[in-house]
C-alpha cells in the first residue's frame, strides 16, 4: 500500500534525524519516568482510602493507566506533532508546499513529522501495563489478548481521527493555540475507567472524544470484562469516524486559501 510506504519513509527519516540527538532521549525517558512516578503516587493515594474504585481493583486501574500512557506516547510521538504542524502551516499560509506534492494530502500531513524520543512513553506505558497484568487476579486468555491488541490499534485510529478533525477546524478558525492544552486536559480523563464519570461526561467521552473507546475498552479486554458487542460497536464506529474524517479533511481543504497577509 502506497500510504504505508510513504509513512514508513517519513518515519525512518524522522527517526534517523532525531536519533542524532541522544540527549533528547534521556530527557524524554526522565520525563516519562517522572510522570509514571506521579501516576503511581496518585494510585497509591487512592487505594489507601479504598479497596476498589467503581469496581476496579488497583491492579486493574494500573492496566488502565498503562494503556493511557502507552497511547499517549503514540499521540505525542506520531500524531500530535503532525497536527500541530498542520495548524501552524495553515496559519502561515505554508501548507501549499505539502499540497503540491504528488502524494495523498491526508497521508502526507499525517505522517511527515515524528518525535521518536517520545516513543519512550510507549515503553513506560507498556511496562506499567505489564505490571498491572501480572498482578491481576484473573488470567488473560488468548482471545482477550488478541482482542486487546486489535482494540488498541482501533483506539489509536480513533484518537488520530479526533485530532485530525480538530486540526481541520483551523481552515475556519485560525486561532487554534489552545489545541494541545485542550487535548491534554481532556485526555487525562482517560486515566480512569470512564464508568466513574457522570453519564453526561461519559457519553461525550465516548462519542465526542473517543477516549472512552480508545482506553477503557482495551482495558476491559485485558481485565476480562468484555463481551463481543462493545468491540464490534467500536470497530463500526471507527470505520464510520475514519470515513467522516477523510471527507471532512477534503472538505476543509477545498475551503483553504493561502492565509498569508
Amino acid at each position, binding site marked *: 500500500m502506497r500510504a504505508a510506504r510513504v509513512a514508513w519513509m517519513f518515519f525512518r527519516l524522522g527517526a534517523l534525524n532525531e536519533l542524532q540527538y541522544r540527549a533528547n532521549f534521556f530527557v524524554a525517558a526522565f520525563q516519562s519516568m517522572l510522570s509514571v512516578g506521579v501516576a503511581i503516587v496518585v494510585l497509591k493515594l487512592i487505594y489507601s482510602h479504598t479497596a476498589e474504585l467503581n469496581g476496579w481493583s488497583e491492579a486493574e486501574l494500573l492496566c488502565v493507566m498503562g494503556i493511557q500512557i502507552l497511547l499517549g506516547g503514540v499521540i505525542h510521538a506520531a500524531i500530535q506533532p503532525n497536527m500541530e504542524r498542520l495548524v501552524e502551516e495553515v496559519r502561515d499560509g505554508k501548507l501549499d508546499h505539502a499540497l503540491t506534492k504528488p502524494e495523498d494530502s491526508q497521508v502526507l500531513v499525517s505522517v511527515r513529522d515524528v518525535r521518536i524520543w517520545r516513543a519512550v512513553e510507549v515503553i513506560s506505558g507498556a511496562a506499567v501495563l505489564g505490571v498491572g497484568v501480572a498482578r491481576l487476579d484473573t488470567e488473560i486468555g488468548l482471545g482477550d489478548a488478541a482482542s486487546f491488541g486489535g482494540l488498541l490499534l482501533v483506539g489509536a485510529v480513533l484518537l488520530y481521527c479526533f485530532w485530525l478533525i480538530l486540526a481541520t477546524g483551523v481552515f475556519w*478558525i485560525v486561532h487554534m*493555540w489552545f489545541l494541545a*492544552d*485542550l487535548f*491534554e*486536559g481532556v485526555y*487525562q480523563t482517560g486515566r480512569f475507567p470512564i464508568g*466513574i*464519570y457522570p453519564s453526561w461526561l461519559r457519553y461525550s467521552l465516548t462519542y465526542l472524544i473517543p477516549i472512552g473507546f480508545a482506553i477503557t475498552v482495551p482495558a476491559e479486554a485485558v481485565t476480562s470484562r468484555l463481551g463481543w458487542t462493545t468491540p464490534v460497536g467500536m470497530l463500526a464506529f471507527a470505520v464510520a469516524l475514519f470515513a467522516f474524517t477523510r471527507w471532512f479533511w477534503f472538505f476543509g481543504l477545498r475551503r483553504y486559501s493561502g492565509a498569508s497577509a
Partner: protein
Amino acid sequence: MSTVEPLARQNPLRAMADFYLTTIRTQLQTQFQYRAATYMYLIGMVAEPVIYLVVWTTIAEQNGGSVQGISTGQFAAYYIVWTLVRNMNIVFTPYGWEWRIRDGELSAALLRPLHPIHYDIAQFAGGKVIWVALYLPIAAGLTLVFDPVFTATALEVVVFLIAIWGAYLIRTMLLWLLGMVTFWTTRGSAIFETYIMAELLLSGRLVPLELMPGWAQTLSDYLPFQWAFYFPIQTLVGDLSAGELVGGLGMQALWTAVGAFLVWVCFRASVKKYTAVGN
C-alpha cells in the same frame, strides 16, 4: 550642547501606575477578542479538577459519604474553588522563554528602561479579569452538577480576594525563576517537569493537603507551593481562624518577597550570560 528643549518627565510611581493600567486595559481588549479560543482552553483546564472531583467523590460515596472527614459536598467545594484559584495562578510558561529569546522579544525588552517582569505581571493580570468572567458560567454549571457545600464569612471572602492575587504573584516569581533556566541549558524541560510534579503533589493541587501522607504535609510547609493553591482555596472552603487567615496572607507576602529577590539576582546573572553572546 543641544539646543532642543528637554521633554517633561513624569514621577516614577505615577509612570509605573500608568504602565500597569495601560497594559491591563489593552490586554482586556485583546483577550476579549480571543474569548472563543480562551473558552476552549478553559475547558481543557477544567478537565483536571473535574477528574479529581469525580474520583474522590466516588471514593467518598463508597466509604459512606466522606474520606478522612471530607464529605462529597466539601470535595465539590474544594475543587470548584480550585478552578477559580487555578485561573488566577496561571502565568507565563517557562517554555515560553525559548521563543522569547529566539524571536528577539527579549532583546527588545532589554532595550527598554523597565524590568520585563512588569510587563508579564501587568499583561496576565489584565487577562485574568476576562478569564474569571468567562469562567463564572462554567463554575455555575459545575455547582449545579456537583452540589458543593461550604460557608464563607465576610472576612473569609475579603481574604480570599487578596489571597488569589498573592497566589498569582508567588507563581509569577516561581515560574520566572524556572524560565531563567533556559539561559543556562537547552534541557530545561526536564527541570520544568520536575517542578510541575513537585507542585502537583505538594501544593494541594492534586488533593486537599490533609489527604497526603504526613511527611508530604511537613515538607510542603517549608515550600512555597501550598501558598499558591491550598491556602487561597482554604480561606473560602475551610474553617480558618482570623489569625490563620491573616497569617496566611503574611506567608504569601513573605514567599513573594523571597521569590522576587531570587528573580532579581537570577535575571541579572542570566542577562549577563545572554549579552555575552547575544541573539
